[in-house]
Each structure stands twice: as C-alpha cells, then as structure tokens.
C-alpha cells in the first residue's frame, strides 16, 4: 500500500474536461440544430471513455496519476487544492461511468429525438458526466464534494427536465433536498477530519491515520467512528439507503435514460465509492459502525424488495430493485470487503442499465405507457428488447452463469470473512435476510418480465421495436451482463489489490455447485413464471385475501406520508407561525407598539393646549406653587 508512486500527469484533468466541453458545445451549438447536440454529447462521452482507457493503459498497480490544478483556497495551515488523481480504484469507476455513459448517450439520441429540449438535455447529461468524473477523480474530500453536489444538481435538473409538469419538478426538488441532507453529513465529516487531522487529502489522511494507528491513540477509534458515521449519512443520502431513500422512486419522473445513467449505474453508487475511497476511516473505526451499516443495508434491501413486489409501474419496480441492490453493495462495504462492493457496483451497472434501457424501449414503443398492466405480449413485437431484458432479469436474479450470481455470492461470502467481529457474529441472520431478498428480487423481476413480455397485449397503442440506436446499447449491456460475472470475478480483485485492503479473490465454486448455490434465484424465477403464467388467477386471489398487506406494499409502507406529516408539514406550520406570530406579531409588534405609545401620549398632551389663557396661568402658577412647596418641605 505504501509503495505508491505519484506521477504528475494531465490525464485525470482531461477526462472530466471532455464532457464539460461537450456540455457547453451541445448547449451552444445545439440550439440551432437539435440532433447536432446529441451527436456532440455522445462524442464527448466516447472521448472521455477513450481518455480513461489511455489513462488506465499504463497505470502500474500502485501508481497514482495526479493533476494538481491550482490552490483552491487556504488560510493558515488549512489549505484545499484542486487535485485530481487517477488510480486503479477511480479508473474502475471512470470506466464504468464513461462506458455506460456513452452507451446511454447513444441510446438517448434516439429516445429524446422528438423532444424540443434536446440541447438542454444533453448539456445536463454531459454536465452530469463531468460532475461524476470529478467526484470519482477527486484527490481530496472537498473536490469529491464538488462532484458530490454537482451530481445532485444534475439529477435535480434532469428529474425536473419536463418542467411543465409541477410534480416532476417537485420530485427533482425532493431529490436535491434529501441529497442535501446527506451532503450535510459529508460536510460534518469534513469538519471533523479538519479538526482532528488538519487535512482532507486522501493520501495525507491515509498517512496520518497510519501514524495514529501506530501510536495506538485511544481516541482514534472513537473519532473515526464518528467521522465514519457522518460519511455514512452522506452515503445514505446519495445512495438512497433506508432513511433517505424516498427520493429515488420519485426520481423516476425524469426521462428513462436519466434513470438508467444516474439512478441506476453511476450516481447512486457514489456512496459505495466513498466507502472504498475513505476505507482507512472505516477500517480504523469501531466495530459498531460496520454493524450499523450492514444492518441498515440489509433492512433497506429487504424492505425495498417487498415494496417492489407490489408495484405496477415498470420504472418503480426497477427503482426499488436498485435501492435493494444498493443495500447489497453496502452489505459488502460495511463488512469491509470493498472490492466485492465495487464488483457488485459494476455488475449491477451492467444489468440494471440494461433493464432500465429495456424498460425505456418498451415505454418508447408503447408511447409513454409505464403501467405494466397496460402491456403484455411484447416478446414478439419487440424481440431484441425482450431478449436483453430476459438476460438481465436472469442476471439480477443471481442465476449461475450470469454476472449477478458471482457478485451476490461474493457479498454473502464476504459477510462471513469480515474482519469486523460483530458482523461475523451476526452473519447468519444477515445472510438469511439477504438470501430471502435475493429470492424476492428474482420473483419481482420475473413478474415484471412476464407481465410486460408474455401473455397478450392489453394496451391500446401499437408497439414497435426501437431503432438500432436503442437496441445496440441494449445488446452490448446484455453481453456485459453475461460475461461480467465470470470475467471480473478474479481480474477485479487482482486489479484493485494495491489500492484496497483485503482485495483477494474468493475461491470460485465449480459450475455445478454454483448452479446449486443459485437455487434461490431459480426458485424465485419459477414462482414468478407460474404465478403470472398459467396460474394467472392466483395473484388477484391473494390480493383479495390480504388486502391490508397489498395496500401497505403498494403504498410503499407510507414512508413518504410519514415524512410529510412528521417533518414537512410541522416545519411549514412552524415557519408560518414564526412569520405571522413572532416576526410580525412579537418583534414588529413591539416596534410599532412603541410608535403607538408615543402617538397616544402626544395626543394626551395636546388636550392640555386649550387656547384659554387661564389654563396656562393655572399650569404656570401650579408649577411655581409646587416648587415653593417642595422648597419649603425639603
């Protein structure tokens, strides 16, 4: 770990520069010719991908390419620089971002073809790529924070892209605000780091923590736990974990490519990347932090899986499945197996992006119809979309040859071998919940597959296969979803060995055993096929039997409503009271009150001026008399 060579090179700076220039060009030139903006944006994404490849090509295991751009700001010893670093960890993320980003850009040129806001869309999409790359390449926590809030902003802009519809904008605002709550956590973490270690630069932090650990500083664990917890809050905000996941389902209001890129593949994984990048904080933190993370992750996975089962909107199903899969990633991250979390990030990026783009293709085909009950029997009408969707469903279900199995299996395995004693102790329960969730995942994905592609077409549009620009990315992603698991199972840990602790491959099972190990996924698929295939009458019967449970699941456990009534409404009420009551009532009251007092007393004195001389004589002599009396009495 400490034999790292820091090479100064411009690569890390060029990678985010491409989408930035692309965004400006797309918006600027695109206004004249809409399609042109799509081309520029896609080209910029591809250029970024190429630059990443070039950067990664000659990257030695423990080498770090650093671009120290300029001193951002600094007072006294505390200083923050704009430094971007490309090392093995960030290169993996960059490849995923730019790779899938380019595919999705290509896909969007067709998907958004008939939307007059195309230049704006592609400008925001490229801006998102820029922010995500800055986040990943950030040399210190502050530059990471720039990307962190940048992606929050882009997701706000893209969710509310069709701003005519107010509740889309509401969803965008909700996403931004909930992310902001998470960002407050990251900020808190930064302040703690500054206070206790004087820097937020990852390399320096790594050394100082190493020093402190060597000195067996008693307070180190406590401080790191606190910092870790703050960063975890930030991660839950950005990666939609239990308390702060409410924004992700609403984020489906944005166009589908946005959901695919931002709310499936890249942005939501930022939390996992933060864990991997700041692993030294979590490693030296107390065992309780790891346990909290794992428990929250498991609960999130399970709850969102149960909700997904009862959703009828295809994008909502995928959204909750994303939240669930993120739970899996945090299981691994919490357990200290950072490379496994990254492994699942990559495989999830492949099949989830494919699923979303497939859903997008279906929606595009059915003229913006998102309700699965209005679809069905599309396998003949949209064969390519069907095949790719089918493959991805098998992948996410975690069935042997597909990538989903390998990463999920690695996660469950990592729980057992985690250095964190508490996690190992609680591993059985966590694994049980995870397996049940995996089964549920298989079930609801198969349900969505069957409802959309099998049976007869229930909608009244006439769906058609999407053009090549949409199907090519689907195919590429489907292929990656298949080979991703096997391909990366051993090469990824080897690749990340120098950068992440405990990055060593698990012994891979023989094909037959792994087939056996994926029995949960197979079981889920079979139940799904039977329930929504031949025994189609059974689900409505179940629904009638336990209406309460169904309403609870469809209503998403009413978490939104709980937040609304417990936090938003009272806050608004209090603000109104503060405004009317305190601000105008009390403070202005006293101010205007004093004015009135002066006015009233003025009025009183006025009555004394009667104009009659004798009254004045009275006051005059009265005064003299009292003076005389006082003089005498005194």
């Amino acid at each position: 770990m400490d034999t790292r060579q820091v090479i100064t090179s411009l690569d890390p700076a060029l990678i985010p520069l491409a989408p930035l220039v692309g965004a400006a060009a797309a918006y600027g030139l695109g206004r004249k010719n809409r399609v042109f903006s799509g081309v520029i944006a896609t080209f910029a994404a591809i250029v970024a991908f190429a630059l990443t490849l070039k950067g990664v090509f000659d990257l030695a295991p423990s080498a770090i390419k650093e671009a120290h751009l300029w001193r951002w700001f600094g007072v006294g010893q505390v200083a923050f620089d704009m430094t971007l670093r490309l090392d093995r960890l960030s290169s993996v993320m960059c490849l995923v971002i730019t790779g899938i980003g380019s595919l999705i850009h290509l896909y969007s040129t067709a998907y958004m073809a008939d939307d007059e806001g195309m230049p704006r869309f592609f400008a925001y999409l490229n801006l998102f790529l820029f922010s995500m790359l800055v986040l990943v390449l950030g040399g210190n926590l502050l530059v990471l924070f720039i990307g962190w809030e940048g992606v929050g902003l882009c997701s706000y802009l893209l969710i509310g892209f069709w701003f005519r519809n107010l509740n889309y904008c509401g969803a965008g605002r909700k996403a931004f605000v909930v992310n902001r709550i998470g960002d407050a956590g990251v900020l808190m973490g930064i302040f703690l780091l500054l206070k206790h270690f004087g820097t937020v630069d990852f390399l320096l932090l790594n050394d100082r923590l190493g020093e402190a650990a060597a000195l067996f500083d008693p307070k180190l664990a406590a401080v790191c736990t606190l910092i870790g917890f703050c960063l975890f809050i930030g991660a839950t905000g950005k990666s939609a974990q239990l308390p702060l996941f409410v924004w992700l389902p609403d984020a489906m209001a944005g166009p589908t490519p946005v959901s695919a890129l931002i709310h499936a593949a890249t942005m939501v994984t930022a939390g996992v990347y933060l864990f991997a990048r700041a692993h030294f904080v979590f490693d030296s933190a107390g065992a309780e932090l790891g346990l909290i993370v794992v428990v929250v992750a498991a609960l999130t996975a399970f709850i969102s899986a149960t909700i997904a089962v009862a959703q009828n909107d295809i994008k909502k199903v995928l959204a909750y499945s994303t939240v669930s899969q993120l739970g899996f990633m945090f299981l691994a991250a919490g357990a200290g197996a950072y490379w496994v979390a990254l492994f699942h990030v990559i495989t999830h990026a492949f099949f989830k992006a494919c699923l979303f783009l497939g859903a997008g293709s279906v929606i595009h085909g059915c003229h913006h119809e998102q309700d699965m009950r209005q679809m069905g029997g599309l396998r003949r009408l949209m064969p390519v979309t069907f095949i790719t969707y089918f493959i991805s469903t098998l992948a996410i279900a975690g069935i042997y040859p597909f990538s989903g199995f390998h990463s999920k299996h690695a996660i469950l395995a990592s729980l057992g071998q985690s250095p964190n004693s508490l996690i190992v102790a609680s591993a059985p329960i966590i694994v049980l919940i995870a397996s049940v969730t995996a089964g549920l995942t298989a079930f609801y994905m198969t349900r969505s597959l069957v409802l959309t592609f099998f049976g007869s077409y229930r909608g009244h549009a006439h769906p058609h296969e999407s053009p090549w620009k949409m199907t090519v990315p689907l195919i590429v992603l489907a292929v990656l979803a298949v080979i991703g698991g096997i391909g990366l199972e051993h090469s990824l840990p080897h690749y990340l060995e120098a950068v992440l602790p405990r990055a060593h491959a698990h012994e891979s099972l023989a094909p037959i055993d792994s087939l056996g190990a994926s029995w949960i996924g197979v079981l889920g698929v079979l139940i799904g096929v039977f329930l929504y295939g031949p025994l189609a009458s059974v689900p409505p019967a179940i629904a009638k039997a336990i209406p309460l449970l169904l309403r609870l699941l469809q209503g998403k456990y009413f978490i939104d409503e709980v937040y609304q009534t417990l936090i938003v409404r009272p806050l608004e009420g209090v603000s109104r009271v503060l405004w009317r009551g305190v601000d105008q009532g009390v403070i202005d009251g006293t101010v205007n009150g004093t004015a009135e007092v002066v006015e009233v007393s003025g009025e009183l004195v006025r009555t004394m001026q009667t104009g009659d001389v004798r009254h004045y004589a009275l006051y005059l002599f009265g005064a003299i008399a009292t003076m005389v009396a006082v003089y005498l009495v005194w």
Partner: protein
Amino acid sequence: MALLDGFPLLSALVWLPLLGAIVLYAIPGGDSPEGQLRSRGLALGFTVMTLILSLLALSRFSSNQPGYQLVESFRWIEALGVRYELGIDGVSLALILLTTILMPLIVLSSHSIHESVRGYLACMLVLETAMLGTLVALDLFLFYLFWEFMLAPMYLIIGIWGGKRRVYASMKFVLYTAVGSVLMFVAILYTSWMAYDQAGVQLPSFLLGDLLHARFTLQEQIWLFAAFALAMCIKIPLFPLHTWLPDAHVEAPTGGSVVLAGVLLKMGLYGLFRFGYPLFPDGAAVFAPYLAALAVIGIIYGACIAWVQLDIKKLVAYSSVSHLGYCVLGLVAGTSLSVTGSTVQMINHGISTGALFLLVGVLYDRTHTRLIADYGGIAAKVPVFATLFLLFTLSSIALPLTNGFVGEFMILSGSYETYPMLTFFALAGVVLGAVYMLTLYMKTMYGEVNPAREGLTDIRLIEAVTLAPLLILVFWLGLFPQPLVDLIEPSVVRSLQITKERSHVLRESELTREALIPEDMAPRGVLMQKQSEYPSRPMSL
C-alpha cells in the same frame, strides 16, 4: 507610480462620487429625456471613475505589509481632537471593491426609474461617498459621521422612489438604525474621554490607534461593547433586530435593494470587526456565545420564514438575514479561518443577493408585481432569464464551484472548532437554504405558464450587461478565491493578534488571576485542539 505618491488617493476615492452628485445638479436639463440620459451617463462616468480609483488603490496595496496603508491624516477639529484620518487594510479594501463594482451596475439598472432620475442618481452617488467614507475612516468620530451620513440618502431612495408603503418602511429603517447608532455615539464619546483621561495628553483623540491604549475594566467593556454591538447588529441585521430589512427591501426600488443588501448590511459586520472587537476584547468575549447563538437562530429562523413568503423580494430579504447569520457566526467564532471566511462570504453575499435583486427588478419592470402567485412556468417564456436566475440561485445556496460555497465552507469549518454544536445547527441552515430557494425557483419558473405572463419578454441587452460582471464574479470567486483570501487574511490575522494582546493587557490591568487558556499550540499530534484565537471566556457553547 511616482507621480501618484503625493496624490491623496483615498480622499479622492471617497469624495469623487459626491462631486459627481454636485455636477449632476450643476448641469441644467432636469427631467427632459435627453437630460435624464445625460445624468445617467454622468452618474455612470463618476461611478466607473471611482471603480478605477479603487483598482488603483488595490494595485498600490501590498497585503503583507503590516498596519494600515495609503494613510492620510489631517487635523480637523482641534478642540475635540478629531482628525481626518483615512487608511485601508485588506478587509476594508475588499469591501471597497465590492461597493465600487456594484455602484456602476446599480446606475445601469436605474433605467426603470423614470421620475426625477437626477435626484435618484445623486442620492446613489452621495450614498457611495458615505459608504466609502465609513470603510476608510480610522478616526472613530469620522467613522460615526459617515455611518450616520449613510442613512440620509438611503432614506430618500426608499422614501421617494419606493413602493406603496415606502414612508413606513423608510421611517422604520431610519429610526431602527438611528436608535442603535446613538447609543454607539455615547460609547464612542466615553471611550475617547477615558483614553484622554488616562493618557493625560492635553488634547482628546478619537483615533483608533490612540484609543487602543485606553484601559477599561471588564464592566465598562461589557457596556461599551453592548452599545457598539447593538448598533452593528441592527445594521447586520442579527436575529431579533431584523424586522426593518424585509420592509425596507420590499419597498425600495431595485437599485436601493441592491445597494442595501450588497453593501449596507456589511457595514455592521465591518464595524464590529474594525472597532467592536479590538477596542473591547473581553466585553466581546462575554457576548460571543450569545451573538453566535443569535446568529444560528437567525440562520434557521430566516430560512424557515423565507420558505413561507409570498413576496419574492421579502423571500430574498429573509434569505439575507439567514446568510448574514453565517457571517456573524464566522466573525464571532474568532479563528482566522472563520473570520476570513466571514469577510469572503460578505463579498459573495453582496454579489449573489445583489444579482438576485437585479433579477427581481427585471421581472418587476415587466409585470409590476412581486407576488410568487402571479408567476409560474415562465422558464418557457424567458429561457435566458431562467438560466441566469438558476445560476444565481445556485450561488445563493452555496453550491460548490460557485462563490457562495467558498465563504460558507470556510465559516463553518472555522467556527466548528469554537462552537461545534452551533455549527451543527448552522448546517441545517444549509439544507433549508436549498429548500426555500428551490421552492421559489420552482413556483416562479416551472409548471404551466401563468396566463397573465404570456407576453413576457426575455432579458434585454442593458439588463444582461448589468448582470454579466456579477455572473463572472460568481464563477471567478468560486474557482479562484485565493487572491481574495490572500488580500483579506493578513489583515484578519493582524486584527486577531491586536485583539488578543489587548485582552492580555486589559486583564493584567484588571489584576484578576483568571486562568488563561494555554496559548501554546498543542503539538500537531493526532488530535489538534485549536481554540478560538479570540480570548475566550470559559463559557463558550
């Protein structure tokens, strides 16, 4: 620059706008169309010349040279010991630059004023003189003179060219500020008298340099600082004393709002920084926790109320209360990082809120209404305006890469060391900030187009020219704030130094055996404890 050595740069800087106002009235022509155009041109000319002078001052200012620079000192009122003493340091120069940059933009934005334009511009120029004077004065008496002098033109601007309730608003504004500053004047007199009494010289003096040698007991310091703080906190405005701001903003014309939010509010903070803390360090230390608490309450209180506002200008006004709460927290926290951050945030707030008011002005000129309900979905109608409004909103909610973030981050990280709990609540302000600004943006810009706003025209050239410099500044200070920080930091560190030394001197003179906070910096081990560099009383929150 040899030829400029003798030239009294600061006096020229201060009195040039006043000369402009006089020239405006000297030339006949009054309110005829070409007369108005000529007076606008003249006013613009004078404000730009003042800007050039301030840039000249910047070029001749070297930030690492200790003490005040470009000092001019003449005897003025001999008997009272009042000297006409001007001088600048990093902090005042930064605020001067903010003023001289905003003023030309305000003159440019005055195209919406049609009746007695000459009077309006003259008021603005006189106001600029008063503001610059306040920033350069080193003599407490002169400072107070300019401080009071600021009220008159502002009263006229709100009172004559304001909205419907302008008389009430301007009266409230003037009375609020006057009450505070009268008390301050008493404190000034007392201070100078004590200094004169102790120093035994034959002439009293109001010079800051001399007053710093005076000795005050803790009791005196508490009362004197309270008087200063009251005047300054009304101006800032700090939480309970802020109710004049929304009324003043709502009723002021566009230019009035910009100068009020952009510069006038900063005078309070500048006053505290320049006079309040150095003169009465222990008194300040006693008040510090309370001011910090009020600041944080102000942050959250301002944000909450802004959220439920119906009038855009009132919303932005309450957001100013919230933003300046950060600046106060930064100043009171007392570490060099937080005080520098507070000054930087003052400049940033001036730019972003100034721009927001200009934008509201643009809307107001077209629709003559400021109610959020009258707008809706105008992003489709005015895309360029919507983009500009979005960018300045982002700067206002402190998004990284915009100027707002730099100041806010420095304040919060700086004040975390002295007031950890308060900084945690201030963070809630960051979230609330996003809530109310985005709500405003959503309600006005997004959704179906409001039928009443069909014929809305997009930004004209003159409005774009007014906003362009501010937009450049937002991103330039967001990406490269270090030059500004380098300008401000040495003066802040020096002022903190003076305050700490003076606090020791006063404490020895009090001969109280108070346990001093161990001043030596803990060796930079793992847990680097850095207490506030202001002398702090044991009861910090």
